């Protein structure tokens, strides 16, 4: 049974020159006690993927699709107030650049 199950995650940026698909159908799952490393070039969408799972993308011109199930609960469909209770308790993120974070 996986703890976090990301299914077919898509992220689209709406730009002046049309919609750009930044993350195209990412799926992975992590079980309890498991460690998953994600490797990619700069700008390949690693950070955006994780921010989307945490619901931390607030820009209105970013469209997130797919599912991110945490213990079977879809984080992407959760209303902001409930999502807030999940963040920092059941799911957390350590950011880069400790001087400004």
């Amino acid at each position, binding site marked *: 049974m996986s703890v976090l199950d990301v299914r077919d995650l898509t992220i689209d940026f709406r730009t002046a020159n049309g919609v750009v698909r930044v993350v195209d159908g990412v799926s992975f799952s992590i079980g309890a006690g498991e460690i998953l490393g994600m490797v990619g070039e700069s700008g390949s969408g690693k950070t955006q993927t994780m921010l989307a799972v945490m619901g*931390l993308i607030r820009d209105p011109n970013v469209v997130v699709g797919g599912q991110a199930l945490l213990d079977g609960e879809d984080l992407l469909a959760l209303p902001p107030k409930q999502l807030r209770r999940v*963040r920092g308790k059941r799911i957390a993120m350590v*950011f880069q650049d400790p001087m400004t*974070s």
Partner: protein
Amino acid sequence: MIAFLLKRTLGAVLVLFAVSVLVFLIFFRTPGVDPARQIAGRQADPQTIAQIRADFGLDKPLPEQYVMMMRRLVWDRDLISYSDRGLVLPRGWCESRAGDRLTGRRAALVWLLMSLGGGVLSAVFRGRMLDPLITGLGLAGVSLPVYWLGAVVNLLTQDTFHDSLFQWLPALGYTPLNQDPLKWFEQLLFPWITLAMGMAGLYSRVLRSDLIEADRSDFVRTARAKGLSESRVLWRHSLRTSLIPFISLFGLDFGALMGGAAVLTEEVFALPGVGNLTYHALSRFDLPVLMAVTLYGAFAVVIVNLLVDIGYAVLDPRIRVP
């Protein structure tokens, strides 16, 4: 923090000393000018001039003169205005002319609250109806000159709607707080608001853009990732850093206000205040008054800036390291 406080206070004391020396030199050691004659005013008889010369110790060495002047200004407080013999400075100024130092201080409180509210509201509701509404109001406040706005406020409250809406409002003027607190408040209410209107627009604009910038910054994202509520993110994290430019602006304006920058507001609302006092002293070349006003204005600026610096240290831990 304590080391920072000590260092900063020491710095302020040094600046105060330097300013007082400078003011002293300007008034007493301008080449070719006899300070006694200046203080005595035009058409003074030789006796008065001799009296002043002895009073201020002008025949004594320079450092002694300085100490004497400072004692009169800060300790004895018995400088006498030559154009208004009844006005003893700065005691008289502190008591009967307290009007606008207080107008300034209370108005600053009003504009601080107005701009805090305006800035936070328009940042939170940005892109919605309330934001352009607040911005428009603020812009109007900044654009309207205070002598016009004050005059219109007077017209509305003292004339047009005086029989209906503003019946409770007393005539223009100033009543000391210890005589009649209610009347004091009623007479100063509209001056406060008028003065604050001109400031709050700019301030809420500055605060709004800083809040929006803070909202995009990494540490606010971290705060959200920790699961903090939106209100906690706003009040504890965004607002805290956004207040730094806000208070530095406030330090400058408030210092100027204490030094008499509210002269137009005072004039419109018939308030006896520092600005007014300075203006009339200037037009009559009333040197003792000018000296007191200059020095007290400079002191006010330095002290307010000291408070602002302490404010920085409270808001931003990085500044606390000396």
